[in-house]
């Protein structure tokens, strides 16, 4: 009854351990045999290998993920679906999620990044939502070799090539460089969508005999085993292992997106569930829909649209061909759905139906080729892995690094040229940030802001994390990633309302890596609760290693904020000469893990500087209420490079200058103490502003228009020409990429 073709027989699979290279361990294989009460055939072994991969099952990260705080009054949908959903009033909701495409991008950076954008957008519109923005968080090695330059250019071009063509603006993100990412770059993409709450759809296969409808591109042999591929580490030898690459087709995706949103609007009653075909393609989407609904599915693989001849069930089920969706359509409504998709020039085919026996059953050529309990398939064994604090943390020096500054001007210009600090405009200008004509704040300010047409509301969004901080202290670094994201949102005048994440780590079987994962999630979680920003979606990317060396722990935080009134949207740039400049928050010696430590010593080390969560919350609340009260003309959060960099960035926007005096040493201008902002205030509002802020804000000086940065510290007075500083900052990436 169970057909096996010329593929290895069940006994051959067992004896030759064919499952091992697919990522199933001996014990897991044994468990499969137990659950089936027989040996799995080739197709079934493939299904289990994919569904039980870390990428699909989170079997190793789940104990940690379960701890995420993900419920509050706004949460309509938490983790577990294509994307999370938050209530933003007026029957509207915001939908967002982040996804990593690190491994594909290391192998084929253009298509890897492009299909990353395509995949995350499908997660958004599979909820019935209209995507309104994309953000990208990227990590590369130092820009000192051709390979890294190639990766940067291609990843940027890939994001642009997909996002621009499909017509969703790429409004924000971040790019940082460190040698830890040289062999394993990070490409994380976040997408945000807007939803009428009535149109909300989830990926569930409910209702016996309802139809499973396949929509979009045909299935080919591309990307087979992408899920297991994402769950393995890179090494030099494996550079030629490159089967899991797909070519993106944004044109088809645009049609699929528009049609999917249209069908939810036109036939809300007839669309029972929607799920995109992402990692592990057809098997993962259909098995997850079945098991979430407690149902079974019965698919006839002969009906799956195929791009290539003679595809086997194994290939059909595991292909990761892009631009495909799976819908569950109410029985009897199939032809309505099919003709709607045809209007958009799309092929759609009923390939099976929902059953009530809980079985995942596949037919091919008139024979049954897989028959598995859907719950078994989607329930991988869970692992509680050991966690051990890395040695470097135990031995870290307590003292803070002391920067050496002989010539403030020279240090100042030098830090502005550091790749991580320098302007990324020459890269993000490749992204269409304006299409859809809703982008109020484009890339270049702390958070991007996208208005919600027809309302006074707007959404702020940002992605943040500093892997160096987490490397020195994963818990506090996790808190800081959250704190910085929230500061960015607040600086734009919005209230932070929720986050998504991409947890980028090394091999979790290494107890030190697992410790980093657990601790950083704990840090993120602590701040998520403090900020009332639930974790509503996310993604885990493990095995980010090159030649057995793990990347810095890099849990990217993607945060969304809500503007109730688009008239109080704030940007980071100084607006006019004569405005008073204040710093909010206290500056202390915070140098371990800082940009200046990296710049002056070539590395980072020591114990991470302290973080005061309470000061963070207080300062954020004060700045937000001051913005909303109209007391402020610009607000900028301080992060890498400290006051020195923050002041310069605020001035560059309109090519203004400043004249400030601080009771700090030259070195402290580069301190990265958290919880700080620079704000500018019109003289007419100074008294009210000072009364509002109390001791949290100190006057530093004022905005000038004489083309000069004038800085007086306890070490003396220094003047720097704005255009010299600007050129250093603006052109540095271009020079490095030459």
């Amino acid at each position, binding site marked *: 009854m169970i057909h096996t073709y010329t593929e290895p027989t069940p006994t051959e699979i067992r004896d030759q351990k064919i499952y091992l290279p697919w990522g199933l361990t001996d014990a897991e294989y044994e468990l499969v045999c137990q659950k089936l009460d027989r040996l799995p055939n080739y197709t079934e072994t493939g299904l289990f290998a994919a569904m039980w991969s870390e990428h699909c099952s989170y079997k190793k990260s789940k104990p940690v993920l379960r701890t995420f705080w993900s419920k509050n009054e706004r949460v309509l949908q938490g983790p577990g679906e294509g994307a999370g959903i938050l209530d933003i009033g007026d029957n509207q909701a915001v939908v967002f999620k982040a996804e990593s495409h690190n491994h594909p991008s290391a*192998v*084929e950076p*253009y*298509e890897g990044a492009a299909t990353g954008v395509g995949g995350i957008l499908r997660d958004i519109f599979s909820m019935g939502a209209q995507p309104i923005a994309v953000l990208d968080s990227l990590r590369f090695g130092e820009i000192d070799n051709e390979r890294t330059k190639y990766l940067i250019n291609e990843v940027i071009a890939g994001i642009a090539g997909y996002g621009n063509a499909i017509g969703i603006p790429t409004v924000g993100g971040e790019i940082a460089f460190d040698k830890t990412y040289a062999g394993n770059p990070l490409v994380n993409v976040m997408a945000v969508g807007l939803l009428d709450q009535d149109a909300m759809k989830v990926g569930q296969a409910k209702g016996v005999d309802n139809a499973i409808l396949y929509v979009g*591109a045909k299935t*080919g*042999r*591309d990307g087979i085993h992408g899920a297991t591929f994402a769950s393995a580490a890179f090494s030099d030898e494996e550079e030629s292992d*490159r*089967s899991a*690459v*797909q*070519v993106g*087709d944004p*044109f*088809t995706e645009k049609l699929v997106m528009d049609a999917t949103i249209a069908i939810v609007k036109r036939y809300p009653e007839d669309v029972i569930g929607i799920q995109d075909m992402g990692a592990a393609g057809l098997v993962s989407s259909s098995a997850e829909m079945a098991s979430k609904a407690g149902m079974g599915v019965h698919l006839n693989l002969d009906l799956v649209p195929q*791009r*290539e001849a003679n595809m086997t069930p194994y290939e059909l089920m595991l292909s990761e*061909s*892009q631009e495909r969706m799976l819908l569950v359509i109410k029985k009897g409504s199939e032809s309505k759905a099919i003709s709607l998709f045809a209007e958009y020039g799309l092929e759609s085919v009923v390939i099976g139906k929902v059953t009530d026996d809980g079985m995942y059953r596949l037919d091919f050529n008139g024979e049954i080729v897989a028959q598995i309990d859907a719950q078994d398939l989607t329930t991988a064994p869970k692992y509680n892995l050991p966690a051990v604090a890395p040695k470097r943390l135990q031995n870290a020096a307590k003292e803070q690094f002391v920067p050496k500054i002989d010539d403030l001007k020279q240090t100042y210009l030098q830090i502005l040229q550091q790749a991580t600090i320098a302007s990324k405009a020459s890269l993000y200008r490749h992204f269409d940030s304006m299409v859809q004509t809703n982008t109020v704040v484009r890339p270049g300010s702390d958070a991007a802001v996208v208005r919600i047409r027809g309302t006074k509301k707007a959404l702020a969004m940002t992605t943040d994390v500093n892997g160096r901080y987490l490397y020195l202290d994963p818990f506090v670094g996790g808190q800081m990633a959250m704190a910085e994201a929230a500061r960015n949102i607040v600086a734009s005048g919005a209230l932070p309302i929720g986050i998504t994440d991409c947890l980028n780590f090394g091999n979790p079987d290494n107890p030190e890596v697992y410790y980093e994962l657990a601790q950083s999630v704990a840090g993120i979680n602590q701040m998520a609760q403090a900020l009332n920003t639930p974790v509503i979606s996310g993604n885990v990317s493990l095995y980010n290693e090159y030649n057995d060396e793990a990347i810095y722990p890099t849990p990217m935080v993607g945060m969304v904020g809500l503007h109730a009134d688009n008239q109080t949207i704030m940007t980071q740039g100084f607006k006019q000469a004569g405005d008073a400049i204040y710093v909010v928050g206290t500056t202390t010696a915070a140098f371990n893990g800082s940009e200046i430590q990296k710049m002056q010593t070539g590395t980072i080390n020591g114990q991470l500087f302290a973080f005061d969560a309470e000061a963070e919350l207080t300062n954020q609340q004060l700045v937000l209420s001051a913005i909303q009260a109209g007391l402020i003309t610009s607000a900028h959060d301080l992060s890498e490079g400290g006051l020195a960099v923050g002041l310069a960035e605020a001035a560059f926007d309109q090519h203004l200058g400043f004249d400030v005096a601080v009771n700090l040493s030259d070195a402290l201008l580069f301190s990265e103490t958290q919880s700080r902002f620079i704000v500018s205030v019109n003289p007419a509002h100074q008294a009210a502003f000072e009364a509002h802020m109390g001791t949290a804000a100190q006057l530093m000086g004022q905005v000038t228009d004489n083309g000069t940065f004038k800085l007086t510290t306890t070490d003396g007075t220094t003047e720097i020409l704005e255009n010299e500083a600007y050129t250093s900052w603006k052109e540095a990436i271009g020079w490095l990429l030459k």
Partner: protein
Amino acid sequence: MFLAKIYVTYKPSILDPKGETVKDALQRMEYTGIEDVVMGKYFEIKLSSSDATSAAKEVESFSEKLLINVNMEVFRYEIEAITE
């Protein structure tokens, strides 16, 4: 001097969205006999190599390194000696 003509196409298992789109367009324009369209890249590269063998070596080397992505694409080439 040598002239290398290099043809780059996707591997057969890789989706060729450009070729598909051109095929659809031709079929809509009522060129009824179009069975299949592959759209690739075409390079004409002039090299000042000393002899055909070293020119071929060079072409193979840079085609693999730069012109194609070996994960997705294949190439073939022809080389001819040219004057000037």
